[in-house]
């Protein structure tokens, strides 16, 4: 049985997928995950999930967002004057980064 492994580096961060392990049950999966994925890189917590429990939908099944022009949805589309609050600037920067990444593929 295959278990997908998600690692969180520090408290409060997101668990992100980092690989998978063979194991006969959940306990063994946790042990193997700790050995294979929790030793070299800094690890605070690991999740193990049976692969068959994961549902997947990909870009062949469905058109995800980002293919039509929805510039009205982006902070960067609006030219306003004066200094913006720092949190607005931060949001706009995050959006600009996401927009650039979408353009990459």
């Amino acid at each position, binding site marked *: 049985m295959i278990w997908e492994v998600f690692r969180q580096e520090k408290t*409060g961060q997101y668990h992100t997928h980092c690989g998978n392990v063979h194991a006969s049950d959940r306990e063994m999966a946790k042990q193997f995950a700790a050995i294979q994925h929790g030793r070299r890189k800094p690890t605070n917590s690991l999740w193990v999930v049976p692969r068959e429990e994961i549902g997947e939908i990909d870009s062949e099944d469905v058109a995800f967002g980002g293919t039509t022009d929805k510039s009205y949805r982006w902070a960067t589309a*609006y030219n306003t004057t004066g200094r913006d609050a720092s949190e607005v600037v931060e949001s706009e920067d995050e959006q600009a980064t996401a927009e650039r990444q979408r353009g990459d593929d």
Partner: protein
Amino acid sequence: MDLETAKERAGPREFSPADDLPEEYRKAATRMIEFHANSEIMGAYLERPFIRQAPSIDRKLAFSAKVQDEIGHGQLLYRAAESLGVKTREEMLDDLANGDGKFLNCFHYPMESWVETPMIAFFVDGAAMRRQATLRRTSWEPYAHAMDKVCFEEGFHVKHGEDILAELMSGSKKEQQLTQEAFEEWWPRIIQFFGPTDDKSTHHDFAASVGLKQQSNDQLRNAFLDQYIPKARKYGLEIPDEPRIRERDDGTYEVEEDDLDWDEFFTIAKNDYEPGLDQINGRKAAQEAVQWVRDTIEGDASAAGGHAPQAAD
């Protein structure tokens, strides 16, 4: 974990559903996040009519995107609240429908005209964003993660709201005048968004001591005023004489709290404010109108069978 340990450990994103947290923490966090979730939903309902009333196709697209975002924020937050194990999403939505669910003061007031839209979409979203940015460091990790996504999206809301304000304030004399009037009506409510002063706030001390809340009402309000008074002036809005606002030597501002109507504020906080009941009951009616959709999804098709399908509006 006992309360003392929770207070000692309290830090940004410190606690997750894997932690065994004291009941006081879980209850306080539930109250705070449920209030936030309810506010997202009620804000969306307040703004929804303006998708139809938008004066151009661009505004219509942006407004419908924004309302959609707000409903999504509500959903994220109900999940973050539910993960504390105190209350289910169904219970929270039912409480909101039957008038027990609490939400932000600003969303209790009816909104009738397009010139009012920037009061919400610029000033209230701006105020909310100030607060939400600090909550990325709250101690309940699922709440902080929800704030990551919310803050990512909110920048668009604020900029779009500001763009509407800029357009109105560079429009006809009549438009400018109506916008100024709307501003005067909403301004005290916007200032009250952050709640009573620190010494009158009942929940702050505990929420701060366990890291749920990152800044006090006064800190948030002052940070908001520092940013948004110059913006309002830039677009030609005149700040009303009341509440009196003192500019300190260092350029920051302070509000004369006694100039604000706190009786109205606390009536609203209890969901007893008469004009606001339409907001609560309107959403309740929408929830009931689409009960057949939920029944169908949950597989209880027989319950939906007897009713002709309805739309929420």
